[in-house]
């Protein structure tokens, strides 16, 4: 017993220099906050298609982007939205789209394209009940597995999940950084509640935000390899189209220059590199908040709005003298496996509240080498989990 693990909060990344004098507070909705934060993060291009419960993001940006001289375009569907942000990103823009389940399903094709071609972009998925049309205004967290494995083929991806509106603001900015830094699509996985809920948010000024920016510098040798295998970090720098280097981009498996290849070694090396680039960045990518783990025998692990429920349950259980701790996952994919393994090794049981029939739990169970109790708390009727549901699972409260 006695976990000495430390949180890895978003603030540690220092992308935002908070100046208490200059913070502007607002009482803001999650979707609106996401849109405003995208503007702050320097998003140059938004291509989207209306869908509940994410439409406010497009609405706000249709007003804000032209004011900043940036591009907002409403595309004909989500397939085109995804294609347009990839095209714009290749042209040097920081790009984003926003959608919900049905639209996210349509995006899977070109999401795979962005992964294969390693073109940065941010996709906001405000989850609702699914599958199919499902429940447009009902909250859900049932896209967890789709985020990981929605598009076909082996691939890594990054997904971040906010549980408060302040986190929506900060993780939106982090998403743009991760996308550019690791040349990958990043998914901001919200849910209907974090999308529509209103809370107090502190906004930094645009000049107080510093995130990764493409340098577009040509290599000294003059030999630009957009998919260079020898780069140690696994992330070859991306040079935008029109910057004086003419190269090829294709969704086919390609060699270091971007041309299609069927060379087995090149194919294998490419897969290994796109996984390596994420693995190398884990220290930065993995973000989570830990609460009361020092003496905990029971730990709640959750994300998104269910993490709020979990926290409240933890507080109430503590009042009753129960030794309950909490892991709030901010980075969902990749999962912070080392941390979770250590937590599991040091507690008696784990409780996993999630608004689906059990998705995150599958990944946690995989880490449960000790065979402790892993208790699911699921709700999939379009309502959020109440602290009482979690307290029932804790028992004796």
């Amino acid at each position: 017993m006695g976990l000495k693990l430390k949180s890895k909060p978003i603030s540690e990344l220092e992308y935002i220099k908070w100046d208490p004098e200059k913070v502007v507070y607002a009482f803001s909705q999650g979707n609106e906050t996401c849109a405003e934060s995208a503007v702050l993060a320097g998003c140059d291009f938004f291509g989207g298609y209306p869908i509940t419960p994410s439409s406010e993001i497009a609405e706000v940006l249709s007003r804000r982007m032209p004011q900043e001289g940036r591009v907002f375009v409403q595309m004909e569907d989500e397939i085109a939205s995804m294609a347009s942000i990839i095209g714009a990103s290749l042209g040097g823009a920081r790009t984003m789209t926003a959608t919900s389940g049905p639209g996210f399903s349509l995006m899977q094709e070109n999401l795979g394209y962005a992964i294969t071609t390693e073109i940065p972009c941010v996709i906001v998925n405000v989850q609702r009940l699914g599958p199919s049309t499902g429940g447009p205004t009902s909250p859900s967290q049932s896209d967890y597995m789709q985020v990981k494995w929605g598009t076909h083929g082996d691939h890594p991806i990054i997904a971040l999940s906010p549980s408060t509106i302040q986190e929506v603001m900060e993780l939106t900015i982090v998403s743009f950084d991760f996308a550019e830094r690791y040349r990958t699509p990043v998914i901001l996985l919200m849910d209907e509640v974090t999308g529509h809920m209103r809370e107090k948010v502190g906004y930094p000024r645009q000049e107080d935000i510093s995130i990764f920016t493409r340098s577009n510098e040509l290599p000294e040798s003059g030999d630009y390899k957009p998919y260079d295998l020898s780069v140690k970090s696994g992330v070859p720098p991306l040079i935008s189209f029109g910057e004086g280097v003419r190269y090829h981009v294709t969704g086919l498996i390609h060699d270091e220059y971007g041309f299609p290849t069927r060379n087995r070694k090149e194919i294998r090396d490419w897969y290994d590199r796109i996984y390596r680039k994420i693995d190398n960045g884990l220290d930065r990518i993995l973000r989570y908040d830990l609460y009361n783990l020092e003496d905990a025998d029971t730990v709640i692990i959750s994300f998104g709005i269910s993490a709020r429920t979990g926290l409240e349950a933890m507080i109430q259980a503590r009042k009753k003298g129960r030794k309950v701790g909490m892991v709030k996952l901010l980075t969902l994919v990749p999962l912070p496996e080392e941390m979770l393994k250590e937590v599991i090794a040091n507690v008696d049981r784990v409780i996993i509240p999630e608004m689906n029939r059990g998705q995150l739990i599958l990944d946690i169970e995989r880490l449960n080498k000790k065979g402790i109790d892993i208790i699911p708390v699921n709700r999939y009727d379009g309502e959020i989990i109440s602290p009482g549901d979690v307290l029932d699972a804790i028992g004796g409260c």
Partner: protein
Amino acid sequence: MKRTAPMFQDYLRPDKRFPSVWCPGCGNGVVLGCILRAIHALDIPRDKVALISGIGCSGRMPVYADFNTLHTTHGRALAFATGLKLARPDLYVIVVMGDGDAMAIGGNHFIHTCRRNVNLTAIVVNNRIYGMTGGQCSPTTPSDLIASTATYGNIDQPIDICHLAALAGAAFVGRSTVYHVRELEKIITKGLDKKGLAVIEAVSNCHTYYGRLNKIGRATDMFKWMKEETAPITVVPEKRKGKITRGIFMDKDTVGFIQHYEQLVEKAIKNMEMLRQWKKKRLGPDINAKKAQVANNT
């Protein structure tokens, strides 16, 4: 306009990707040649050209050309191109698609790109069949003709690419064939120089599947077919009856999506200024101080 023949090796990637994947006699090479000559004639620097394609035989075209080249997903090339063009309006964005690519899986993107009138050059290589996957029926396969997925004859009606483009709002629409090389080149050159969307249909040959399955013959027979079964728009309609019309069907003066968007930006900034002044009048000169005060109180 420069009329000198370009040095093709200046525009190609000869050391890397040849020979091409195309069958001997394929029209795709002719279309690529026309594009290169058009770019040369207009003196567009290679760095300023983005050649984008979808999936299919025509989709492999960008590999051979020394531009900023993007080989996208099936049917989606126009949506990628829209994004790129809006992010980089200074680039000449040329999109090459096949008939299945542009009309079937990409039909919706095609209509809406025409509707937006995005400043792109869209070239549809129409060989009336899916060549790369083995001769399946496409939206432009004529009724009753044979394809590998229409073994008893095609029961669908073919779609008229140029007609659709003009109706949907493209600024420039033209058609020629890979037999009429000079004409095709001229139309592409005009299209490249156009503000708004230019759609150019290049009627092409797939003797390997279309020609063989429908007993038209080899590449040369198909070129002969293109010569005999098409007529320029300049001749009287009686002489064009039952034939494919070549020429320019639409050439209207528009500003195109990019300029429309620029106007919208000006409007938005002006509105923002007006709002700012209105707030200043209502809330007094220092809004930020007032805001901070409100924030402190909360």
